[in-house]
């Protein structure tokens, strides 16, 4: 599952910038790490974050599903077709450096996907918008971000309604590949057309409510921030910078 999940975990209650900073730190740190050991420690750290957010099972499951195709590709490219020396793995002959490379790249992808799924699941779009508004971010940008975050659940709900309506007109789901392809039109077209038609009205409604007023919006209910959280965010930045400094220093050495 991708998207916000209601909860009361420490991550849910944290300032949205803190949660996103944690995910961002994992993203940046993943590229600073070049050894399988360190990368997989990062994956464990991302999993620990998901556990703190109370979304470990769903995030790990979704992350694995999303990462699997990439893992398969990496396995073929590096482990099967990689350079010598090779090691025997049952009937397979795998490239030793290739395995290490696949583990690093695959680990990076898994860590990044896992941390972002956790961030998405524990960051309320509404709180994020309020946090951005409190910082003076223009409405256009906050709306764009919030719409992107909330579009999936909205479309899902709408798709479910359309599906029901078409079933009530005799559309049968399942069956042959051709039958499923034919069912796409009555399902996808009203979803897209309806969404476009509603966007028109939403633009009008938001405009008269001052969305384009140009003034700095008042944050009505900004999420509380704290010295500790601000210190944590700065620390993450320093840590990531240190990781890159270490990487470049090691490369030079």
């Amino acid at each position, binding site marked *: 599952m991708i998207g916000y999940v209601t909860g009361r975990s420490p991550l849910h209650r944290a300032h949205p910038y803190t949660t996103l900073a944690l995910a961002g730190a994992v993203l940046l740190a993943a590229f600073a790490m070049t050894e399988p050991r360190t990368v997989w420690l990062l994956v464990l750290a991302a999993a620990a974050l998901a556990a703190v957010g109370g979304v470990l099972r769903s995030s790990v499951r979704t992350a694995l599903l999303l990462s699997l195709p990439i893992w398969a590709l990496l396995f073929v490219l590096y482990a099967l077709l990689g350079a010598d020396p090779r090691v025997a793995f049952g009937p397979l002959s795998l490239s030793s450096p290739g395995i290490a490379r696949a583990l690093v790249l695959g680990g990076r992808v898994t860590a990044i996907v896992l941390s972002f799924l956790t961030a998405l699941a524990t960051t309320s779009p509404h709180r994020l918008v309020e946090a951005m508004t409190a910082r003076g971010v223009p409405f256009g940008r906050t709306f764009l971000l919030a719409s992107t975050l909330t579009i999936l659940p909205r479309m899902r709900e709408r798709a479910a309604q359309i599906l029901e309506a078409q079933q009530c007109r005799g559309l049968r789901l399942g069956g042959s590949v051709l039958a499923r392809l034919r069912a796409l039109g009555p399902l996808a077209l009203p979803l897209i057309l309806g969404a476009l038609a509603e966007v028109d009205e939403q633009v009008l409604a938001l405009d*008269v409510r001052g969305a384009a007023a140009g003034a700095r919006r008042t944050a009505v*209910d900004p999420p509380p921030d704290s010295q500790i959280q601000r210190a944590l965010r700065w620390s993450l930045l320093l840590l990531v910078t240190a990781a890159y400094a270490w990487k470049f220093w090691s490369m030079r050495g």
Partner: protein
Amino acid sequence: MTPRVSLVGVTFTYPGADRAALAGVTLDIGAGEIVVVAGAAGAGASTLLLVATGLAPRLVGGTLAGQRAIGARRCGIVFARPWTQLTGLCSTVRDEVAFGPASYGLPRETVLAAAERAMQRLGIAHLAARDPAHLSGGELQRVVVASALALEPDLLALDDPAAELDPEAADALYAMLPQLGRAGTAILIATPDLGRATAVATRAVQLEQGRIVRDGSPAEVEA
């Protein structure tokens, strides 16, 4: 007193349309007037609301000919489908209603007070902490109307505002309008629910194929 909106010989055509949606419309709406705009589907009632509030052609495109002067300092508009008018950014009804005043950068206390007043007016103060996404259609429509009122518009356009409301809620919504009119708000209502609208309206305008064919007492239109 300056009319809230003055239209003289206004013709409006949507982009790519063969015929004008409004043709030669001349109309003045003054402060405190409650005008019901009647007409069959496609007659131009909804379009008149968009033109009167300045949303057409500015946001919908198209071409406008004739003279239009909008004297209203602030306009509000409410459409029939409440869920299309939510910001999608607010997790509580209070925040949703406060969106308008907040957009103008008013102080937080002023924003909250305006939202509270609007919610009281619509009898939805008990919904303040609820998530708009989990409200019924009727409750949601009242939130949308409150959101429009929170900005205290001089001109309020209502496009079939009670479509999603049960009879009691619809009666309560329309019953609130004369009070707004007395406070000086000009109100334009486009609706097929002529019974309720004409009961509170001070004037009625009938459109046919984009032209005003009658402009007079509400009783004439309901007949």
